[in-house]
């Protein structure tokens, strides 16, 4: 094994060690739990950075595979065994840094944010297991381990969303997240089954090389497309893509740092990562479905985000929208752009969540101080004017907002541009012009709703002066992560050219993977596609800056200068507003169809079981009993009748000789002897 892989393994296992320590000795650590977890993650981050630099310096890929289970049998002349292992390539190296960095910052942030929590050490333990599973997803080189860690991420997400499980809404959200994810995982698993059946291996390399050699599931292109799409189902669940996006906004019931870590930067990005990993086996058809899924998700979520009032809900839908963006980017074939958006988005979205956490923390303390238990600490309508009170939070938040809106000089601008250029190139090759249209539309919407949030929260007037007096900037341990993330939201970390990323290290190192799919059903060849992106880049840049500018301007006009009355709009478009505010009625729709159908079927079958099947069983018993009653009657009247008559006769007889029975033994004995003598006499 390559020595660096030992370090990679250490990176993987350190959070697990932290988890084990905290779950078993959490009580002993008490308030030091946070420090323990943070220390472990700090070491983890340093190791990850080391791996990052040493990996990017070399071309080769580090891979270590071993046989986990050997079935000792041969199928289709291939020994049947399951190989698993870990590998580090450039994508993994980047993801390692992203995951450990965000996780470390969230650990740090939580020291203050969660310090009064009743289950402080449990919280850190769960963060540990989450980080472990997430790193597992990133490091593995096969679908089996991928699925294993995939599910473990689901578990840790369940535990963290349900951290405040005393609240019904929190435990509901946790359950919903897990079950909805399971639906996606079901598809993923079926995909794995197809792959396993066809290739008898689950390592990425093995599968892609087999496909490269023309080995296609069941010899059918459709099945190859299906396999790719089924694996993509996993991503749909985890990355909250339409139609399984409903769990993510609910997941905001978890603590805000958790939202930052899991539901903004890492776990939800795992789906995008999965698509990136699976990229070589996706056919053109599959990619098209993926692109549309991403586009629809991006649009639906953005439209909902516009009208939400809860600061975390806005961010949640913005996350869903941005995830749709990434998926769309990958779907159109802009591989590097999609991955890069994943990385840049991780930084600024985590920042946004942490900043919102900082705001909520301040609001919460102020409300707590005023004994106000009715005002929602997360509702932007009750905020405003916080700028002066929380300058660090405000400025970092502004940077993040600029980044997500795709304003030049930010990292978000670079990645978003590339995706939009990719969509343009895609429509150029395939004629699907709807995708770039949605792409630009969503870019504008994003700029609009993000600035709406920023303005409502920090600018303008706070309508309760008294409360404003009680609002303070968050402690240093919370603002430092914000500042780090804000710094990372600038372009320099990804490319020295502020308007194009394609010459930066990211694009140089994160090259397109070799497509394994047979040419006939593959999408546009990589080289041509990259060429076309270059052609479209300028146009994309201009357009995206324009739509973002429009979006930002509209936000300022409406909410800062109040030239347009948002309320008037709301009233004028009441049905539309309600439709958006209620999230396109997805929850209601699912409740009415899938959930109701499941529960209905459950009740029906339980009734069937208890009434029909058991009825048959009991009926058989009843029938037997009935027969026995009949035979019993026959027995008692006919057979017993005969018997009783005999008894009656005997009784009659007995009555007459009753007097003989004196109860004295000796009298009986006389009779006995008489009898004996009679016998004797007869014998003589």
């Amino acid at each position: 094994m390559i020595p660096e892989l030992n370090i990679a393994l250490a990176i993987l296992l350190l959070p697990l060690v932290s988890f084990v320590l905290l779950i078993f000795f959490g009580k002993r650590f008490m308030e030091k739990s946070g420090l323990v977890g943070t220390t472990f993650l700090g070491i983890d981050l340093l190791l990850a950075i080391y791996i990052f630099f040493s990996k990017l310096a070399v071309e080769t890929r580090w891979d270590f595979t071993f046989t986990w289970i050997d079935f000792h049998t041969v199928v289709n002349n291939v020994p049947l065994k399951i190989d698993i292992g870990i590998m580090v390539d450039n994508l993994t190296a980047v993801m390692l840094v992203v995951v450990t960095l965000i996780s470390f910052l969230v650990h740090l942030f939580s020291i203050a944010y969660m310090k009064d929590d009743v289950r402080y050490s449990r919280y850190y333990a769960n963060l540990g297991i989450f980080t472990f599973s997430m790193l597992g997803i990133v490091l593995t080189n096969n679908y089996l381990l991928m699925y294993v860690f995939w599910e473990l991420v689901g578990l840790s997400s369940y535990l963290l969303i349900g951290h405040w499980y005393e609240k019904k809404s929190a435990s509901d959200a946790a359950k919903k997240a897990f079950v909805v994810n399971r639906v996606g995982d079901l598809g993923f698993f079926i995909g794995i089954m197809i792959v396993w059946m066809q290739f008898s291996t689950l390592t990425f390399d093995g599968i892609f090389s087999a496909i490269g050699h023309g080995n296609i599931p069941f010899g059918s292109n459709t099945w190859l497309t299906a396999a790719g799409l089924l694996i993509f189902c996993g991503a749909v669940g985890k990355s909250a893509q339409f139609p399984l996006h409903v769990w993510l906004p609910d997941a905001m019931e978890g603590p805000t740092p958790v939202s930052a870590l899991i539901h903004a930067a890492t776990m939800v990005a795992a789906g995008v990562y999965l698509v990136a990993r699976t990229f070589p086996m996706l056919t053109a058809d599959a990619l098209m479905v993926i692109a549309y899924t991403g586009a629809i998700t991006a649009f639906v979520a953005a439209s909902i985000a516009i009208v939400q009032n809860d600061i975390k809900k806005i961010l949640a839908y913005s996350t869903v929208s941005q995830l749709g963006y990434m998926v769309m980017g990958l779907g159109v074939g802009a591989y590097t752009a999609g991955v890069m958006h994943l990385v840049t988005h991780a930084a600024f979205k985590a920042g946004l969540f942490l900043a919102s956490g900082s705001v909520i923390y301040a609001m919460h303390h102020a409300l707590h101080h005023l004994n106000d238990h009715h005002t929602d600490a997360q509702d932007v309508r009750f905020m405003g004017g916080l700028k002066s009170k929380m300058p660090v939070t405000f400025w970092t938040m502004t940077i993040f907002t600029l980044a997500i809106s795709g304003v030049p000089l930010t990292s978000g601008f670079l990645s978003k541009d590339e995706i939009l250029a990719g969509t343009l190139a895609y429509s150029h090759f395939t004629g699907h012009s709807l995708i770039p249209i949605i792409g630009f539309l969503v870019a504008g919407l994003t700029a609009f709703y993000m600035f709406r949030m920023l303005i409502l929260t920090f600018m303008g007037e706070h309508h309760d002066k008294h409360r404003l007096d009680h609002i303070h900037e968050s402690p240093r341990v919370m603002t430092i992560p914000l500042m780090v993330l804000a710094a990372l939201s600038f372009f320099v970390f990804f490319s020295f050219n502020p308007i194009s990323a394609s010459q930066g290290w990211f694009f140089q190192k994160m090259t397109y993977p070799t497509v394994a799919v047979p040419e006939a059903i593959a999408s546009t060849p990589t080289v041509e596609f990259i060429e076309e992106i270059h052609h479209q880049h300028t146009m994309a840049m201009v357009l995206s800056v324009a739509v973002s500018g429009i979006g930002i301007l509209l936000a300022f006009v409406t909410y800062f200068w109040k030239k347009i009355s948002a309320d008037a709009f709301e009233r004028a478009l009441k049905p539309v507003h309600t439709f958006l505010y209620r999230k396109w009625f997805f929850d209601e729709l699912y409740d009415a169809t899938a959930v109701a159908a499941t529960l209905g079927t459950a009740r029906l079958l339980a009734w069937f079981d208890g009434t029909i099947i058991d009825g048959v069983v009991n009926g058989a018993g009843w029938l037997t009993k009935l027969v026995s009653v009949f035979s019993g009657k026959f027995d008692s009247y006919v057979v017993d009748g005969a018997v009783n008559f005999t008894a009656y006769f005997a009784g009659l007889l007995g009555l007459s000789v009753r007097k003989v029975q004196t109860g004295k033994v000796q009298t009986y004995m006389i009779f006995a002897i008489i009898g004996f003598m009679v016998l004797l006499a007869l014998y003589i």
Partner: protein
Amino acid sequence: MNMYEIVFYFFAFVTVASAAVVVFSRNIVYSAFSLLFTFFGVAGIYVLLNADFLAITQLLIYVGGILVLLLFGVMLTTNTVNIDIKSGSMNVIPAVSVVAVLAGLLGGVFWTSDWFVSKQMGDLPVQTTSKEIGNALITTHVLPFEVASVILLIAIVGAAMMARREGLKSQNPSSK
């Protein structure tokens, strides 16, 4: 009449007479004591039948054991304050008739039967039988012998149990 006959008739008389006293005496103590003589008489008859060992056994067990037991029974069950330890009879008439018929039958059978006799009186030399019985007990009859010993053991234990348990119970008179 030789000596043998004299001795026989003597023992026969003692046996029958004392048995009559046993049966017909109203006083239970008299009955018990005359039973002693009956046993003696029977032992004598055993001797006349060449069964010396059995005669001794008869004396030891019946006189030494059973009779003493019976006397204990009499004493334990009879209210000693009340001097009258007589016991009545019942069913006298039917019993007398039955017994008479029975005796007649038995006597008739014994008298009229033509018994197979291989050795007449005097054919057999008088000899001791203890040794032979001893041999027989531990060879051919060892199983019945062992069974008998077990039965005795059980009887003793059982008797002791019954007497004792009821003894405990008697402290609070039975509810029945």
